């Protein structure tokens, strides 16, 4: 009897392992098939973009695997390029009903898979009304889902970008802001920085500061000084000081020094390191930091890491 039980357990274990191995092999094959299809679609779409003529894809995107491969191909093209003619991409999306497919997938998927599909959705010009569904995901408990939904929403309806960001119930993280900046760099989100800096909304202000920093807008100097002297939120003040330093502006003004003195030692050390690496001279640093804090800067300047930059850029006095 025991022998029979032993044989049954052994056999079921072997069958279990075989099934698992088969499943793994099948999913690997599907991944490979999808990658090969995406490769082929990228080549075909780029050919169409250069010839400015929309043709049928081969093989036609008529199965879920092919739909996903086409979505990934479009995402790769649109998220890494700017100035791309979206007429052809729109036509392909309409022809193969890609937006409907992705919306259904978003409804039925969970976790990282849903996030991935939301990211794909942000790259695809949508024809159907997606705003309502995306706004539902904006209230998700998971931060990555919220971020992916926000990016998709901004890409779907860029004209309402400021209203959407202003209505958010959560604080944008540096990662979220970086992703919004990527949309700006792709040229699909036309936002002016000035109203954002004047806004009282934290998220809008942080985005405005990020725009100034990323695009090196030197004429925003005065507005940054105003924010530093009047803002009550410590994070906004912190970000404004970093933005001002990224523009290479002097930080020795009384208001700035006052704000710096209110910062924690840890944050002061971080800022000191950042300013040293940004090219501020020791004399400029000695005006705003105490002598024992600038010893750290001296050691950075003397290190080989700093030498590389020092030899090619002028120090900011």
């Amino acid at each position, binding site marked *: 009897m025991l022998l029979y039980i032993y044989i049954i357990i052994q056999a079921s274990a072997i069958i279990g392992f075989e099934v698992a191995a088969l499943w793994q092999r099948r999913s690997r094959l599907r991944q490979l098939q999808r*990658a090969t299809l*995406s*490769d082929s679609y*990228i*080549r075909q779409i*780029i*050919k169409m*973009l*250069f010839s400015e003529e929309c043709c049928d894809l081969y093989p036609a995107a008529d199965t879920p695997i092919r739909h996903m491969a086409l979505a*990934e*191909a479009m995402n*790769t*093209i649109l*998220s*890494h*390029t*700017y*100035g*791309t003619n979206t007429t052809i991409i729109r036509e392909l999306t309409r022809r193969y009903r890609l937006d409907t497919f992705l919306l259904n997938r978003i409804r039925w998927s969970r976790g990282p898979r849903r996030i991935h599909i939301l990211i794909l959705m942000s790259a695809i010009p949508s024809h159907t009304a997606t705003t309502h569904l995306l706004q539902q995901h904006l209230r998700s408990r998971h931060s990555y889902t919220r971020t992916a939904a926000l990016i998709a929403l901004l890409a779907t309806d860029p004209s309402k970008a400021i209203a959407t960001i202003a209505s958010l119930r959560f604080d944008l993280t540096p990662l979220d802001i970086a992703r919004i900046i*990527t949309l700006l*760099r*792709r040229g699909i989100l036309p936002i002016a920085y000035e109203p954002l800096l004047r806004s009282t909304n934290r998220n809008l202000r942080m985005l405005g500061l990020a725009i100034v920093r*990323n695009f090196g807008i030197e004429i925003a100097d005065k507005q940054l000084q105003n924010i530093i002297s009047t803002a009550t939120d410590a994070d906004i003040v912190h970000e404004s000081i970093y933005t001002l330093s990224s523009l290479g502006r002097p930080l020795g003004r009384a208001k700035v020094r006052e704000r710096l003195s209110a910062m924690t030692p840890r944050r002061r050390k971080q800022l000191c390191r950042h300013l040293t*690496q940004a090219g501020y001279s020791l004399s400029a640093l000695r005006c705003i930091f105490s002598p024992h804090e600038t010893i750290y800067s001296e050691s950075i300047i003397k290190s080989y890491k700093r030498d*590389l*930059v020092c030899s*090619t*850029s002028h120090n900011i006095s």
Partner: protein
Amino acid sequence: MNRGTILIYSQQRLLATLLAATIRDDNRHIIYCSSLQQLIAKSNSLRPTLIYIIDSAPFMNGANLMEMLRRSSLHRPTIYVITWQQSEHTVLSLLECGVDQYFTFPISMLRLRLKTLAHDSQ
């Protein structure tokens, strides 16, 4: 007219395909390398005219990548780097390493194609 060989190094196959499709030309041989060893070997055996590296990490591991790619004193391939990083430090460091041009994503496909064509005509 044979316009020579172009090597593309990227760990993401789809990105390499995007770049290859953008600069594609009937008279040009484009080879995709997924590892640095493969890139160095191909660079020394095929003598490419242009190398696209879609990553800045290979320059940060201490190995002298540029020297390995330009081992032969008679052959000096042009090296273009494309990454998402746009900090001045990264750009300066890479240019000091010997990189000929640095592009940041997102790129304009048309401008990249023209840039490659201009390189061929040099």
